[in-house]
């Protein structure tokens, strides 16, 4: 280990930042090495100089000025100023705007798709349900292309008393056609 390697230990040992074993090693090395002794002396002297400068008292007026400024600020009545009121108003307006926006979105949203339950998609060839009576079409707002038509048909053993529900999904997501057919007239 050359003397450069000892510098950290010597610098730390100057204020007791080393353990006892390391301190003993440093002391041993300093007894043998004049260069490191000078280095250690330099560290010690600079620390003493700086500490003595640091401990010199500061003009009391500086403390007084700080205390006076702090107490003056604390003695002021709390500022229920227009600024705080303005922030509150801005926050309330923002919240109201956000609520209105969300409400608009909710109203304009297309109706949620019916839960499919145990429905399965049946692809064409289209099953023409034989209906016992004509199904009344809901009024169409726009031209609907009839094909391709996806037919949703119940699978599994439905309860005997329940009619078969056939759901026709058009290209227009707003238009869904349901046929409710009596089991007697429907194909299995």
């Amino acid at each position: 280990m050359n003397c450069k390697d000892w510098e950290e230990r010597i610098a730390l040992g100057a204020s007791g930042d080393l353990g006892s074993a390391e301190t003993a090693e440093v002391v041993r090395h300093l007894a043998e090495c004049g260069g490191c002794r000078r280095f250690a002396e330099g560290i010690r002297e600079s620390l003493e100089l700086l500490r003595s400068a640091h401990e010199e008292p500061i003009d009391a007026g500086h403390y007084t000025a700080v205390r006076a400024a702090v107490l003056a600020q604390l003695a002021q009545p709390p500022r229920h100023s227009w600024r705080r009121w303005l922030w509150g108003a801005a926050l309330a307006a923002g919240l109201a705007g956000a609520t209105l926006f969300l409400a608009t979105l909710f109203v304009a949203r297309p109706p949620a798709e019916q839960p499919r339950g145990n429905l399965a998609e049946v692809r064409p060839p289209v099953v023409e349900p034989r209906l016992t009576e004509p199904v009344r079409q809901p009024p169409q707002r726009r031209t609907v292309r009839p094909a391709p038509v996806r037919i949703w048909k119940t699978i599994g053993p439905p309860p005997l008393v329940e009619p078969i529900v056939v759901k026709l999904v058009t290209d227009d997501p707003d238009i869904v056609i349901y046929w409710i057919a009596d089991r007697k007239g429907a194909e299995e």
Partner: protein
Amino acid sequence: MAPPLDGTDELATVLAAARSGDLAAFEILMRRHERLVLVTALRLLGKMEDAQDASQEVFLRLYRNLGKVQASQNMAGWLYRVTVNVCHDVRRRRPEETSVEDAAELVAMGDNPQQAATRKERRRVLEMSLRLLSEKERAALVLRDLEGLSTGEVAGILGTSQATVRSQIFKARIKMKDFVERYFRRRT
């Protein structure tokens, strides 16, 4: 360091009074710790004006946090931590006006070697040598070597490990030593 008021009945009484809004009690707390706060801030910032601003902010934070500062807690540790943080903020807002090069220039411009040991000059050496350090090295050295805290306490205040603090202190001491030696070599 502040006199050992922490943890005593006296501190509890003063704290309770200050919490209830008694500004006279709070002034007692300020007087008790004003040297700690102002001198630490001065060493960290290098300018009295900045140090006073930082001290005001520290005491205002103390007032706002009186409910959190327990009588049994180490109030000095809390104040050191807040002082370091506030000084960090101040330094970020106001970069140092005098650079390290300017400081070296000031050394060269000195003209009276006989006054090298005067109080004013020692303080100047302290201020200039502190400018040579990085912010973290400066904080570590001020707390460890000038304020006399232990390495563990410094690590707690700076939110770092003891190994890191030791490394910072080592580098800072070497820089300080070199600066002090250079300064007095030039002066003589």
